[in-house]
């Protein structure tokens, strides 16, 4: 392929002459001293940012903010998750109700509502103020 290329194919006076003029006007409109000052100023600015304390770099501050948000989010999630679990466990285990159907729960409900009343009556009454006869009648009632 390289050998097939003739030198006359590679040379075109007019084309090269035009190519040499390309960009001359555009480049001529630039003030190269001003451009050089701009390059040096931008370089200095970059160097100031490079030499900033590690923790004060924008990247590090962004990372720190992200970590704080992440930790706070995880804490909130764990707290809520823990509370939900606790409530569910206490409700289910204390009542021994896990595995019961809705109908069974409905059937149990009146006795649950009733039981504390009896216990409350006995304990709240205060046995120390009762006469022996009264105590005997209470005991016999409890025994039955």
């Amino acid at each position, binding site marked *: 392929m390289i050998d097939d290329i003739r030198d006359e194919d590679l040379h075109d006076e007019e084309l090269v002459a*035009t190519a040499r003029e390309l*960009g001359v006007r555009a480049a001529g409109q630039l003030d190269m001293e001003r451009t050089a000052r*701009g*390059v040096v100023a*931008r370089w200095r600015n970059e160097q100031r940012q490079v030499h900033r304390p590690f923790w004060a770099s924008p990247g590090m501050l962004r990372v720190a903010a992200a970590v704080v948000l992440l930790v706070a989010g995880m804490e909130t999630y764990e707290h809520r998750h823990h509370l939900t679990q606790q409530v569910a466990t206490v409700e289910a285990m204390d009542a021994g109700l896990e595995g019961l159907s809705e109908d069974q729960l409905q059937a149990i409900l009146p006795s649950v509502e009733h039981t504390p009343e009896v216990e409350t009556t006995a304990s709240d009454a205060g046995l120390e103020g009762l006469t022996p006869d009264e105590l005997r009648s209470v005991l016999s009632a409890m025994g039955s």
Partner: protein
Amino acid sequence: MASPQSAAATDADLIARWRGADERAATELVLRHGTPLARFLAASGAQQEDLDDLVQETFLRAFRSIAGFRGQCQFRTWLLTIGSNVLKDEGRRAAKRKVVPLDETLQASGGSPHEEAVAWEAEARLREALTDLPRLQREVFLLRAQQGMEYEEIASALDTTPGAARVHYHHAVKRLKERLQ
């Protein structure tokens, strides 16, 4: 701005001084190579209003990675290839180029209005045709035809062989001639 000593300094001297944080060396490098770089960028499709920023960005990138410059090619050639990457990254291709009113262009130069208009038209057509070339062909063409570089130098900068650079140049010339006829 350039001191008598720095005027005689080679690019290698200036680069060494720049590595030692001598800002005057950076200024000297910009003054020395800024205009050819601007011409290269303009020919590659950069818009006039972006040109100064692109030149600055190219020098900044070059200065950031100057440790990687081992003198495998001339500093200017290396700089032009960086400029080409900057232009690509910035997405400021000629396809988006704003049409510059003829009057504005002609104001900047001398010569008769007719000659200037003919020259301007030829350049505009070539710029347009260049934007349609594959990037490698365009770069090889500009480095050779606009910047007057040898194939060996172009090959070093573009990490290819002189033979391949010659082939790219051939294809570029052929396609440009077809477009301009």
